[in-house]
């Protein structure tokens, strides 16, 4: 931040990259920083070169980036999330590697792989990325892909808005990525509490990167929530009453409601901090009547519902897979619906448990402590429901079931440690220690991450037409389970020994054995990540033997399994007439489920448009310009957004028509193929005989 702000380049100059740090002083910290920036640059160059070499720019633009198809948007969300997951896990590993070498002595207090400031950036980006750019895109992507198909809808209610939401999320992710190369990221953790993140204590660009990434992507998530809610209320197939919806749709509805009501709180707290930092407001300073405690208050009004936004889709996935892979009906459908809805509502009443120690009186703490413990009840109900679903079923141990088992074992431990923390007097002892870090990873990894990976494994064939390799899928799941146990169980112990979270260094040698175990766990997590990508790669190479053109590889019972795999862009040749809960299963019980519709008609699909892409570009420009105080660019990009919207509003936009003949042709081909394929029994599910046409005589659930 030296010197004047240039009117053209703002605060940018040649001294903001990690390479200048490296030139100034060569040590392990600057090498790690420059290395990360190089990976980013080389990765980007390699990506561009690869796309050019394969001549994929055109197809990428035409078939993906400009597509308003919710299924493709969902896949793009998930790809974004997986890229960010790679960075997040690697950062988690670097944090663990640092702490395993961070034992200081009384004379040399600081030690370890990276410098304290660098360490603070690491946990801040790690937390921000994992929550906002891994977990959120994973679940939003999965819902986008699955929800319309399960509801029997053609698409989301607002397909182009959907594109814009994806664009805004990607813009936020891009800002976080760019901060690796240009400038620094904030050091205030993923919550960025003021006053530390105010202008006085954090003058640089770091906090601003976080603020703009959060503001932009948060806006996208709010819009997504509205889109989901309207889709569920308005786009259900005829006959699909609310109480016939698959459970994943119910949890999506809860997520939608929570996104709508919780995300604005984050936008507000971030905007207030922006005003503090850019316009000398005093919302969160001690001077001039501000109150920094209100930041924690508003932030967690978003933050707590957010953790249930993250977990509920995973609960939806587990409901689907526990029933499918044990060949039984979901046990306690109504209780699961009620439990999900109660969680959604109660989650708005517990936010204070994130700042029990801020200084309010005991009565306030008790009120919120009790509310927090109550929310454990509906969650417990769900666990029993899933276990009852699997009880006496013929459970096939596929990769999703391995994840589910890991979830059962580990999530319950995480939930119990949460109930412990809900007790304010205990929280006073362990708050801000690694006990807390262990707790939230213990619910987030077995809950969100396992759930989403299980969901990806489960619905992958629907998107791409071939199954993922089960052997490697199971190996990945087991590695994630083992990696989790080794990385995070030691943190419970360390927390009880008194180690604070976010510590760049410590002087207690008793910590070391646990640190080493956790570091081994982090290596396992890296292996799990590699194994995950290997699963995709090896399955892609064996895609012919894994192909499931029949479209129903798991003998499922919800509507999405009635279509071919990969699913055509129109999903259903005719919008189905729903007569029962689990309509596809009902059709199987009644005999021949693959009946062609009597009549085909033209299908209207939203036309491709670059609208979302342009808005994303403008939003990225706006964020970057605001971070670096490049005012002309900020004004220009800010005006571009309403301009683009107005421009689209002024144009008459014709939908894309898919003619009845074309639909009929494709659909007939699919029906003939199904008839010609030999049905596979469940015992054959993992073999080459599984062509996506299950033996319906085996269908009981």
């Amino acid at each position: 931040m030296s010197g004047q702000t240039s009117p053209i380049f703002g605060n940018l100059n040649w001294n903001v990259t990690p390479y200048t740090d490296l030139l100034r002083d060569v040590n392990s910290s600057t090498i790690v920083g420059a290395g990360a920036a190089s990976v980013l640059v080389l990765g980007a160059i390699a990506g561009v070169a690869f796309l050019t070499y394969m001549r994929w720019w055109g197809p990428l633009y035409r078939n993906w980036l400009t597509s308003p198809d919710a299924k493709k948007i969902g896949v793009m969300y998930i790809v974004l999330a997986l890229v960010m997951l790679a960075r997040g896990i690697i950062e988690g590993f670097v944090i663990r590697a640092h702490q395993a070498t961070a034992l200081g002595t009384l004379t040399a207090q600081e030690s370890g792989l990276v410098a304290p400031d660098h360490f603070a950036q690491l946990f801040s980006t790690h937390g921000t990325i994992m929550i906002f750019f891994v977990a959120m895109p994973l679940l939003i992507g999965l819902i986008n892909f699955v929800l319309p198909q399960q509801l029997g809808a053609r698409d989301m209610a607002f397909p182009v808005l959907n594109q814009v939401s994806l664009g805004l999320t990607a813009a936020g992710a891009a800002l976080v990525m760019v901060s690796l190369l240009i400038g620094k990221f904030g050091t205030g953790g993923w919550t960025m509490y003021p006053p530390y993140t105010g202008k006085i204590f954090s003058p640089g660009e770091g906090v601003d990167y976080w603020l703009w990434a959060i503001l932009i992507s948060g806006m996208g998530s709010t819009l997504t929530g509205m889109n989901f809610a309207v889709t569920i209320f308005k786009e259900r197939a005829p006959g699909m009453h609310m109480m016939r919806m698959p459970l994943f749709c119910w949890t999506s509805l809860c997520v939608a409601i929570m996104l709508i009501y919780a995300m604005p709180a984050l936008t507000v707290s971030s905007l207030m901090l922006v005003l503090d930092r850019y316009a000398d407001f005093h919302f969160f300073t001690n001077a001039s009547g501000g109150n920094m405690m209100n930041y924690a208050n508003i932030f967690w009004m978003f933050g707590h519902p957010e953790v249930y936004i993250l977990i509920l889709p995973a609960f939806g996935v587990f409901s689907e897979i526990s029933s499918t892979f044990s060949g039984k009906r979901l046990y306690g459908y109504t209780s699961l619906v009620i439990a999900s809805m109660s969680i959604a509502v109660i989650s708005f009443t517990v936010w204070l448990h994130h700042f029990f120690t801020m200084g309010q009186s005991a009565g306030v703490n008790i009120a919120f402590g009790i509310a927090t413990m109550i929310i454990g009840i509906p969650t417990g109900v769900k666990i029993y429901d899933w276990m009852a679903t699997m009880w006496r079923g013929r459970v096939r141990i596929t990769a999703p079931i391995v994840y589910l088992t890991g979830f059962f074992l580990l999530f319950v431990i995480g939930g119990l440690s949460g109930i412990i923390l809900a007790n304010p007097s205990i929280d006073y002892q362990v708050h801000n220690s690694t006990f807390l870090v262990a707790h939230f990873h213990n619910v987030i990894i077995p809950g969100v991450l396992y759930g989403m990976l299980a969901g990806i494994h489960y619905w992958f064939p629907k998107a791409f037409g071939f199954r993922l390799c089960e052997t490697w899928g199971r190996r990945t799941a087991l590695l994630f389970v083992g990696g989790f146990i080794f990385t995070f169980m030691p943190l419970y112990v360390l927390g009880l020994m008194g180690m604070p979270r976010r510590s760049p260094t410590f002087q207690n040698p008793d910590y070391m054995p646990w640190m080493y175990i956790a570091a081994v766990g982090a290596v396992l997590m890296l292996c799990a990540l590699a194994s995950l990508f290997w699963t995709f790669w090896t399955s892609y190479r064996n895609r012919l033997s894994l192909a499931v053109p029949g479209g129903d590889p798991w003998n499922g019972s919800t509507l999405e399994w009635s279509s071919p795999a990969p699913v055509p862009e129109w999903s259903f040749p005719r919008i189905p007439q729903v007569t029962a809960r689990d309509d596809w299963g009902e059709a199987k019980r009644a005999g021949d489920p693959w009946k062609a519709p009597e009549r085909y008609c033209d299908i209207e699909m939203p036309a491709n448009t670059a609208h979302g892409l342009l808005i994303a570009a403008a939003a990225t420009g706006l964020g970057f310009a605001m971070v670096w105080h490049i005012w002309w660019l900020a004004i220009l990009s800010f005006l571009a957004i309403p301009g683009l919207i107005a421009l689209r509003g002024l144009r008459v936009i014709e939908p894309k028509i898919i003619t009845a003949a074309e639909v009929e042709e494709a659909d007939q081909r699919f029906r003939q193929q199904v008839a010609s394929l030999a049905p596979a029994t469940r015992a054959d599910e993992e073999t080459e005989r599984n062509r996506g046409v299950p033996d319906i005589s085996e269908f009981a659930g």
Partner: protein
Amino acid sequence: MTKPNTGELDPQDNAASEVRSYAIGFIVSLLLTVGAFAAVLADLPSTWAIICICIAALLQIITHLRNFLHLSFSGGQSREDLLLVLFSVSLLAIMAGGTWYIMSDLGGRMHDGGEAGHAAHAMPDR
């Protein structure tokens, strides 16, 4: 899908009344906004100014819901709309009431809630 999802108006039926509703909403919002600014600029005692702004804000919300978002308690969707409003109001009440509860408790436990004693901490020690 039989209906296009481009949101076109039915030109015969209700385009005129739609446009009127939007126009009214726009003018009312404008007036309320100007009113809020006027309340600040005028020499009102600050409590009154705050009350004025709050009322203007609430009216503004209602105008937006009615005229722009087509919320209404009569007509085909009145039941859904009523439920939606009740649900939103209860969540907002939880958030606003909870904030009031927490922040007033915190304020009460600080020395005098004043700022004089804290000014010294506003600058970093380093």
